[in-house]
């Protein structure tokens, strides 16, 4: 059973942090298809957060197709991001390193790169919703 750790200062909404941590667990292979996510009560017993936050995170995961709720039992992972996505990641990683080389060549500092990246990420997320 995985545990969540929330950081109120990170600037990321709490429910998103949970979603990200589930993604991370899937990537690391800590969670796989068929595994049960901790129940709302279990999460709340370890981290003092609003139960609705957990519900919202789980609904988001359901929307992404990563999890499904079985009424009366719990929420279960329906898809792995395991080996397949690790393979998908390699070309993405290469492209990213190319881009970084070009950004540095354009005299962009590391903080500048981060700011640019975060803005683009946020704007693209807003476009999708």
């Amino acid at each position, binding site marked *: 059973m995985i545990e969540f750790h929330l950081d109120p200062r990170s600037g990321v909404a709490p429910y998103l942090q949970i979603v990200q941590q589930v993604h991370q667990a899937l990537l690391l292979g800590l969670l796989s298809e068929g595994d049960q996510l901790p129940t*709302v009560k279990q999460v709340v017993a370890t981290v003092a957060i*609003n139960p609705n936050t957990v519900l919202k995170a789980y609904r988001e995961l359901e929307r992404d197709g990563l999890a499904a709720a079985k009424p009366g039992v719990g929420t279960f992972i329906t898809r792995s991001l395991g080996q397949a996505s690790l393979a998908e990641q390699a070309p993405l990683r290469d492209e990213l390193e190319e881009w970084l080389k070009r950004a540095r060549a354009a005299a962009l500092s590391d903080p500048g790169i981060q700011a640019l990246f975060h803005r683009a990420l946020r704007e693209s997320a807003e476009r999708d919703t």
Partner: protein
Amino acid sequence: MTAIIQARQLAKRYGQRAALSNCTLSVPSGRVVGLVGPNGAGKSTLLKLACGMLAPSSGTITVLGHRPGAGSAQISRVAFVAQDAPVYPALSIADHLKLGARLNPRWNQAYATARIADLHLDPAQRAGRLSGGQRAQLALTLATGKQPDLLILDEPVASLDPLARRDFLRQLMQDVAEHGTSVVLSSHLISDLELVCDHLIVLSASHVRLTGDVERLTATHHRITCARRDPATLPAGLHVIAAEHTDRQSTFIVHSDTPPPKGDWAIDPVGLEELVLTYMEHDRGRDPGPGGDSAAADQDSADQGSEVAR
């Protein structure tokens, strides 16, 4: 969504001093509501008005559809834990549970006993010997044991050490997860409440400054950073709450119902703490500012804006 607390122009005066002025708000049920404000803002007053310990000087307040404190049926549905969790020092923990069982029409003795056991508290221990955190837990047990529809907590974690604070909030959230109780808790530190609240009320100098669902508040407020400019030149639909100017740069905190348009500026989200501070600093002297589901806020949303030039 039914409103669990509804206040209209609620005010409380002590002689010349106004503890609470012109307070209009509507709190939806099923929420964990954070009541934030500096000391002396009127938080305790508002909470005591909500549970019937005080009578209003003017205006009205209804809780669960009825006047607070009107008869023991109403009192049994609203639980209140006062600041510093007072308990009877000479009585044991078990005695306190007995108190709860005898005085309340609805009391879950099994739940209360199990909770005390989970907290590793000795029922025979006298309440006077408990630490601050343990006292707070006992008071919370007495409150949740009577199975209320609404739980009101006045600065429940203010005098607790960080460990006790975390344990208390965890226990509280478990109770909410299990019973779906609506909760209103006050604090003068937003950081205590950030992770547990989904609805916010900001009080300052006896007035309500801001009220609404946390999600909606964070979604509709943004920080706009740009070259120095007059706020009036910003697109319509962006209501400026606060502005700061240096010789080169202007930073605005704006409220906008729709996502702000792209332009010659950077748009960033505003954290909850910063939002609360911004509203507290700006003396609006009137009713709540923008809020998600507050009825009065909808009336007010057309009328915003105050500017602080530095």
